[in-house]
């Protein structure tokens, strides 16, 4: 078991690279990604696990980084929106008008990207179960549906 009581230097694996950061035990993964590593594509929306704007992938699964301590991420593979690197879902969001202000977009992209990898045959019910984790205030979700379906159906 890991135990920290004060500021410590830890190693994280983010977007395929090993990085060394100084963390407080209380730092969330969201805080460390943004403030320590400058990966500001991951957004705070509620810091309460309700909106999904801060979603990242941990070992391929979408996780709300506001609800995970950075210390818990040690030994796991973290992927942020900056690590997507021309994933089909990014192009699909552009082509399907899947965003307006763009603030919730990173989180949605991460959920959709993981969904495609984990459930490539996801039906509407599964898509809904997965995407209900996130909030978008600009679109009416119709465009997001088109974007994720285009990727699941390999139309991008």
């Amino acid at each position, binding site marked *: 078991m890991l135990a920290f009581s004060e500021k410590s230097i830890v190693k994280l694996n983010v977007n395929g690279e090993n990085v060394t950061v100084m963390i407080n035990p209380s730092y969330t993964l969201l805080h460390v990604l943004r403030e320590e590593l400058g990966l500001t594509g991951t957004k705070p929306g509620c810091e309460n696990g309700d909106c999904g704007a801060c979603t990242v992938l941990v070992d391929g699964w979408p996780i709300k980084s506001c609800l995970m301590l950075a210390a818990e991420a040690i030994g796991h593979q973290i992927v942020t929106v900056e690590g997507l690197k021309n994933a089909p879902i990014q192009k699909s969001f552009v082509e399907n008008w899947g965003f*307006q202000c763009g*603030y919730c*977009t990173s989180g949605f992209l991460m959920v959709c990207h993981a969904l495609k990898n984990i459930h490539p045959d996801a039906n509407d019910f599964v898509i809904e179960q997965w995407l*209900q984790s996130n909030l978008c205030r600009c*679109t009416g979700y119709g*465009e997001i549906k088109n974007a994720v379906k285009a990727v699941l159906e390999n139309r991008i």
Partner: protein
Amino acid sequence: MGYIIGKNIVRKEAFNKVTGTAKYTDDFITTGIYHAELLISPYAHAKIINIDIFEAVSSTGVKTIITGSDINVLCGPLLDDMPPLAKEKVRYHGEPVAMVVADCEQNAKAAVAKINVQYQPLQVVNSVLNALKENTVIIHENLQQYKKNVPDVYPEANSNICSHVKIRKGDQQKGWQDSEIIVESSFTLPQSDHAAMETRTAQCEILPNGRVIISSSTQAPFSVKEQINKTFQVPIGVIDVNVFFVGGGFGGKVPVQLEILAYIASKAVDGHAVKIVNNREKDMITSPGKIGLEANMKIGAKKNGKIMAAEMHFNVDCGGYAEIGPRIAKAIAVDCAGPYNIENISCDVLCVYTNHPVATSFRGFGHTSQAFCIERMLDKLAAALNIDPLEIRMINALVEGNYSPTQVKITLSNTGNFGECLNKLKTLINWDEGQRIEENNNLVRAKGIGCFIKTSDSPTNAISGVLLTFNSDGSINLNCGVVEIGPGMKTTAAQILAEKMKMDIGRIHVKMEVDTQTSPVHWKTVASMTTYMVGRAVLSAAEDLIRQLLNAAATVFKCAPEDLEVADEKVFLKTDLQTYLTLKDIVHGYQYQNGNSVVGQIMGRGSFIMNQLTFLDKETGLGKAGPYWTVGAQAVEIEFDTQQHTYRILKAATVVDAGKVLNPKTVKGVLMGGMCMGLGLGTSESFIYDTEGIVQNTSFRTYKMMRYGENPDYLIDFVETPQIDAPYGSRGLAEHGIIGIPAALANAISVAAHVDIINLPITPEQIWRLKAGVQV
């Protein structure tokens, strides 16, 4: 027309937004910046007896602590009624009481927890009804002493009324005499929140040379300048406001609040950079939300459905401070009749203080609440007369030659064709199959209609501007003061310019950030006025460019400018299309073979100011509030379970007279987003208070918004009646998707469940209570 207008144009910043590289205000991570953290009031109305900061001030990392007694200013956009930090008393749950400035967020929060405030609770005004009772508690004792920042705000002495807007049109007595049926009802609509995904944030640094550098997630950077100037007497020229991408606004990022606090904080630490960021809970209650509304409506009509008279009383719940409430009251008055012709109107809109969180502009600017009332009234009238709800709207539809409630003559250009919107809606929602259809398993499928008309209530002198410069390759840089809050207005500006210059939009480079020192003033990015205002400025700047390009080429070709034409980044001789100059060869001056050079750098300037707008007459409302209206018809189709009182939303439809659809996918996107937000208001969104005015649902776990899959199928169609004075005939419509939707939903449920919906949101519990006759 038709070079690029009407085509789907991907927004300029699209790939930055899907890669996490688009920067929002709080994405600039700066080491050494101080953090300001607010202590907020746990009471809705209380006297502040004492604030003890002794322990907090010596807490780790604390630089300073500021309380209301340290600041001797009042602020507000219309009425100076609000101290940046509460002074002597608090007027709403969530009001800022003290501000800690510390070296980091954690230390600031730790110190806030150590501040000890002693309150003496006061009687809470927990509704508009209570606020207007005789001998009620007065929330602002010094109401009459507040400085007015505009002439047309009318606070009433010894009351909780901070403004009163009146409409008196036609002959009331005659209208009621001519009426053969009278329908009356009252409505109550709750306050709610913008809930933009990016919470509000601001930073301020005051440089040794006096410059005040502010970064903010604002829709109104030029208002920030004005407010800081007015409140603190800082010369307006030294204030520089920078805005990057904004993560949704919906009107909530118009008020100047955190910017003022950031300035105060920075000033208190010798100008050091300070940032203040709302957490979600503070964003919901400490910063302003949406108005609540109570209304009493009376409509008189002939048996054939023609409305003869209307008497309306709207009471706007603006919360503890006026903010922009009096303007929302005005907006409700201006469009009180909806898209219908009513000859005889008496309408009174009061803007009322309560001990609720402060309200400000919210998508639709009061029209969603107003439309709920008038559209429910239309359905009640239709039911009373046994006339089809769509037909009764057609009978009363506003047409060319009618007059608005403030007695502006309606034309097809300034309003569009509402009747045609209704016609198209009828087909779109398959109205003729029947409004209420019983299906198997206790299910009923039902439709409801809700319509809208909206103009802006901008200052009569609102302005916009555009500056254009060329790069040496002939591509254009477009600089305007419009903030990119989501609807893609920067791309729209580029599209209008590309059309006018007849060039590739890819060769137009838009400055996404706004810097008030170098960007031309744009009033505010609000009111669905951006395409109209900045679009006009773009056209004027393009004309300026074209004139200079023609003159430059005329010099080179030794011909008259009239013989030349600009297209495809070339200036052609009209009579010989093979003879041309490419823009890149003249935009930075033309050089002859011998080295002589002429013309110089070509730059475009475009400007726009609202014209012909007037203040409204205090007693009758007579006057012109906005430059044009946008009209539309909407519908919602639901599936209602008569046993469970639950419902699913199947379809939401909008037909809007867009004038001209500039960018179809973008326009449909903002309309769908508006409809979705309207369904949120209809189904679940509202602030819930306890008996002491404390908001119970200050997080997204308890404040429920529409989520993926709860949305219906969206149906959208357009009417295109050009607005003559608008860029390519295009009307504003960014807000409008929301306006008629809660009413349409309420009309559908009223029919499906045989109940009379007069409140929002419409929960299964509310339907059950109405059916069972059970009071709350």
